């Protein structure tokens, strides 16, 4: 570990490296359960006949749902090694600082997506109340079965 830095060499070595691909199945039942969990009765997310007559022509997912499995919200399985490196560097607390999602193509029921994640940046910040905290920026890209870029996510994890 670098002297005086909370960002371990293991974490540093992961910056900029895309994870192995993770395949995500977008099932209509999973979409409906996701919408149910936020009390969203939008028929575009569950009613096939209604959705067929819409401009989409099929059931779509609410913004931010990219199918199953998802490991820890938007931190897909490919990012678990980053979370592991945070833990092995001695930082026990990881909080979700925020997320930005950019959407390019709708996610439809029946899609098979593939996602890649990478640690884009790791920075230290001094805080008055919590001491030194490490901010990790994780980028995630999602492509569909046609090879179209579906969405880009940029998430901030706050570790201490």
């Amino acid at each position: 570990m670098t002297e005086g830095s909370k960002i371990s060499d293991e974490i540093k070595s992961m910056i900029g490296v895309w994870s192995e691909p993770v395949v995500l199945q977008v099932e209509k039942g999973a979409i409906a359960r996701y919408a149910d969990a936020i009390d969203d009765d939008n028929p575009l997310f569950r009613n096939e006949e209604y959705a067929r007559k819409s401009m989409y022509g099929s059931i779509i997912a609410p913004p931010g749902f990219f199918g199953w499995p998802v490991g820890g919200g938007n931190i897909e399985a490919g990012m678990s090694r980053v979370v592991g490196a945070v833990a092995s560097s001695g930082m026990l607390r990881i909080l979700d600082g925020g997320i930005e999602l950019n959407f390019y193509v709708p996610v439809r029921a029946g899609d098979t997506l593939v996602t890649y994640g990478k640690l884009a940046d790791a920075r230290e910040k001094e805080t008055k109340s919590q001491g030194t905290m490490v901010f990790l920026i994780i980028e995630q890209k999602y492509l569909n079965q046609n090879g179209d870029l579906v969405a880009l996510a940029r998430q901030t994890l706050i570790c201490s």
Partner: protein
Amino acid sequence: MTHHDKKQLYYEDVKVGDEVTPLAKVACSRMLVQWAGASGDFNPLHYEDSFAQAMFVGSPIVHGQLKRAWLGHLITDWIGDEGIVKMLSCQFRGMDYPRKMKTMTEPHDGETWWCKGVATKKREENGEYLVDCDIWVENGKGEKTTPGKATVALPSKK
């Protein structure tokens, strides 16, 4: 009001400064469990008292991504079926604590959260009619625990 009752929003309907139709949410422990199952986020921070204490948040907190999903609901309800969400972002600035359950399905009386927003900019770009918004989740004290932004593309009457 259910989704079926909502009208399509057009670009021409929106003025800068207009409010996004507010949406009320009640976070309760049952909802957090349901969200965990639906989203795949099984972090014990959101359901185990002793783990939440060890993480210095006191007791289980509302998932940030659940609040992000609430904001998605706020926006998709506002823009209607022919509106498209281009960008959605939020920051998790403050902890929110769910209501406990009184019955199997009903939470105790307590805090209600409001998802709100305001249109900040209109622009035509590459043939799309875009509206930028500031959005946020407000807790029962009126504090913005989850401020964010959204960009939507709306149909035009032109």
